[in-house]
């Protein structure tokens, strides 16, 4: 029965069975009804050596195509410094579990504390949990937080400018949990603040969720919104790109009570959609409604500074069905990723990479519109690294041509609208080539 992952020799097994006092391992399953004992082999492939396994993965890998990515839509092709991946391979980090024994888990606990500090700096909020699955589920949890905080109110208003994929997940959670979700239609590509205020006046809204930058890449202006929400005794959540918050006005500066979103933009590889990282930050007043783990500072018996999981009374393993969330684990290793990434990029680098992406995106926007083949979809709207243009070209054929040339073009939003994204990884030459290919295609 021995295998490289199962070290049991026949002699070992014999000795163990003798100690247990049974004749065979099968005897340890005597309590299982005979009719459910599975006696055949699973219909799965035969065992592969490392050589064969590597070959199999190489074959699969060859069926994927690495492209020059000009799309976002919730996953952005940011640069991942090699140092991050290298440090993530410290197996003391990745082979540990939740730090239940703090005395031998200070490494995990401390980086989570650093992560909380870094995300709190980016969002401007006082508290951040030790991470969520992704931006969509974090936004759904933010919705639950607001409902739990607003007594006897069960309706949440969300702007239709939140990314569709995020809104789909939020709607699924709301439908099953019994939260009434009102999606307020957009106006000129941004949240319709007047329509949101009209909903608030009905007096039954627990919370409002709006995004920035939004699903069209537009940086939204929430002037006056926090006052209207708080006057209606509701809570205010902003879904925001944490990388962009190094330069954009923060959820705290907009007066929000909760910030949430996806941390993929903090240098995480595209990875075909995951693992990424969800984050939630909030004001201290909402801390006890925040789901997930939280790490705090303390001292040990000798007075040394140390870190520990805290405020656990909120969590599902204590509160069971009375908890506000069922979340148990977190994306701890991705929180470490975000922490190391931001530590490397630092105060200056986080601003510089946003400038590179923003300048590149505007360069592409200007070049596309200058061809006469594209019009701004939302003229005059401010954007950072993602924007939408309108065209009479057939977008699917255009993207098929770009794919043939090793390029992932913009996302087809339908009705002749295309959404492009540019990160610090794209070069002026790549952008020029993209535009040249499009111009040739149109002729």
């Amino acid at each position, binding site marked *: 029965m021995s*295998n490289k992952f199962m070290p049991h020799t026949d002699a070992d097994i014999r000795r163990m069975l003798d100690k247990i006092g049974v004749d065979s391992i099968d005897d340890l*399953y005597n309590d299982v009804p005979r009719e459910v004992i599975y006696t055949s082999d699973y219909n*799965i492939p035969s065992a592969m050596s490392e050589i064969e396994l590597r070959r199999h993965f190489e074959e699969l890998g060859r069926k*994927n195509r690495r492209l020059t990515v000009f799309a976002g839509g919730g996953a952005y092709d940011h640069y991942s410094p090699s140092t991050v991946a290298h440090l993530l391979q410290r197996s003391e980090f990745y082979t540990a579990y939740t730090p239940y024994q703090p005395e031998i888990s200070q490494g995990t606990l401390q980086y989570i504390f650093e992560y909380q500090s870094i995300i709190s700096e980016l969002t401007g909020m*006082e508290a951040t949990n030790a991470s969520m699955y992704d931006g969509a589920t974090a936004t759904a949890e933010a919705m639950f937080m607001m409902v739990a905080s607003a007594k006897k109110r069960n309706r949440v208003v969300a702007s239709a400018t939140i990314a569709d994929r995020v809104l789909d997940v939020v709607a699924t959670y709301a439908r099953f949990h019994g939260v009434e979700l009102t999606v307020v239609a957009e106006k000129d590509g941004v949240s319709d603040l007047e329509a949101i205020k009209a909903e608030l006046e009905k007096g039954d809204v627990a919370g409002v969720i709006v995004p920035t930058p939004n699903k069209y890449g537009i*940086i939204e202006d929430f002037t006056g919104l926090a006052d209207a929400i708080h006057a209606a005794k509701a809570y205010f959540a902003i879904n925001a790109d944490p990388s962009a918050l190094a330069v954009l006005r923060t959820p705290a500066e907009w007066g929000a009570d909760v910030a949430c979103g996806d941390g993929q933009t903090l240098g995480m590889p595209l990875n075909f959609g995951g693992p990424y990282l969800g984050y939630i930050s909030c004001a201290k007043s909402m801390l006890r409604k925040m789901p997930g783990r939280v790490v705090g500072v303390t001292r040990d018996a000798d007075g040394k500074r140390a870190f520990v999981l805290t405020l656990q009374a909120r969590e599902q393993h204590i509160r069971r069905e009375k908890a506000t969330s*069922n979340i148990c684990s977190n994306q701890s290793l991705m929180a*470490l990723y975000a922490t190391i990434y931001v530590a490397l990029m*630092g105060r200056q680098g986080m601003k510089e990479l946003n400038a590179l992406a923003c300048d590149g995106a505007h360069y592409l926007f200007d070049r596309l519109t200058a061809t006469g083949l594209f019009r701004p979809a939302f003229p005059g709207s401010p954007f950072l690294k993602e924007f939408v243009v309108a065209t009479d070209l057939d977008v699917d054929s255009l993207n098929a041509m770009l794919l043939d040339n090793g390029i992932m073009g913009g996302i087809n939003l339908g009705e002749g609208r295309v959404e492009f994204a540019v990160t610090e990884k794209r070069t002026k030459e790549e952008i020029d080539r993209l535009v040249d290919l499009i111009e040739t295609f149109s002729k």
Partner: protein
Amino acid sequence: MKYYDKLVFELSRPGRKGYELPADNYGNNALQSLPADLLRRDEAQLPEVSELDVVRHYTNLSMKNFGVDTGFYPLGSCTMKYNPKINEEVAADPAFTAIHPLQDAKSTQGALELYYNLQRALSEIAGLHEFTLNPYAGAHGELTGLMVMRAYHIANGDEKRTKVIVPDSAHGTNPASAMVAGLQVVEVKSKPNGSIDVEDLKPLLDDTVAGIMMTNPNTLGMFETEIMEIASLVHEAGGLLYYDGANLNPLLGKVRPGDMGFDIMHINLHKTFSTPHGGGGPGSGPVGVVEKLARFLPNPKVVKNADGSFGVSTGSESLGSVSTFFGNFGVMMRAYAYILTLGKENIRNVGPLATLNANYIKESLKDDYLLPIEGACKHEFVFDGLKDKSTGVTTLNVAKRLLDYGFHAPTIYFPLLFHESMMIEPTETESLETLDEFIEVMHKVAREARETPDAVKDAPLTTLVRKLDETGAAKNPVLTYRQYLAGESK
């Protein structure tokens, strides 16, 4: 080695940096031209450190951690098996890590094939019709599975079925997931041996029951011998059976949950299929269902087309989506590599050897530790603390003393059925020598408890930090470096 306790913020010096970016040759100053009202006013106080600062800092932090690669990690219910290194390597291949989830399916055939193959392998191992791999973790899988359960009853016009039966011994996540899915929890009693009391279950099975959530083996590591009767009772009452895959490991090669009558289950890839626990994640919680429930699984779905190619589809009867894209794909890659490495020849030994290891420890220690339930356990078992209760040495004391001897502690004070629960799960990847070392140390701690109980109560004595003031941390939460600095300057 010297004790290291710096925070990355404390290494920061103005002007220092750990990155280089290409020059900005766009010449449009677009960022600076954005309306000032939309820009950040107060700069984020982020660290300013060199690359070497970062490397040394996080290397030093890693050395303050204990993982499976450090030593034996018998944390019950968490299945801390070895995480193979080749899995890390294949999962880091840019042929997969550099692809965008919204790329045209023509350009992601390898990733879609991997997703599909893993989905099929899990269906085969579970004895179920189809899996979604989208859920991100065990708890997320539970939530998704319960949504499937509700969607099924709603589609049948059976909206009154809103109750889900959960054993009183279940992990807290079960009732919490039910609550999030909009279901009401009804507890069913456990018998003294931890298994479900069928007589207590019967009166609960009315036409408002959506289903039952079970683990098998249960929380005490004991097989639910009456499972076939439970399954037929629940099905006769119109309910569905949900299998919490937390304890799937001992059944690999032995029993398929679908064959026991389960309709829905989740699998923790980070437990049974050896993907790293990552300090608490990322995990992956695929959900499998019987054929009649497949149409309710979440979007997006990965499908095999008639021509043998792979595609992405969305089902109109699907419960909706629970993830932004396809779930934690990087975790799936590792689980797939693990399944292929073991293959059908070796995977069938996983359950039996995990069970053998657990029974060996149990039988070797029951002279010193109180074994509340006799008989063969499966992958794990529970002691109710030390046998000799006169010393005042608790399960917590024993757990902390184990840290001094270089072992991770078992899961403690769970399940709640006993006051001094100590839940031990060795997994199949541990050798007899490691088990014997653990057994010897457990005996030694029991001896210390009799001879020098006060010393055991002071444990841990040799760890980098000692007992922590957890009450103080909760009373005055300091959750960021900014708050820490404010507290220091007071």
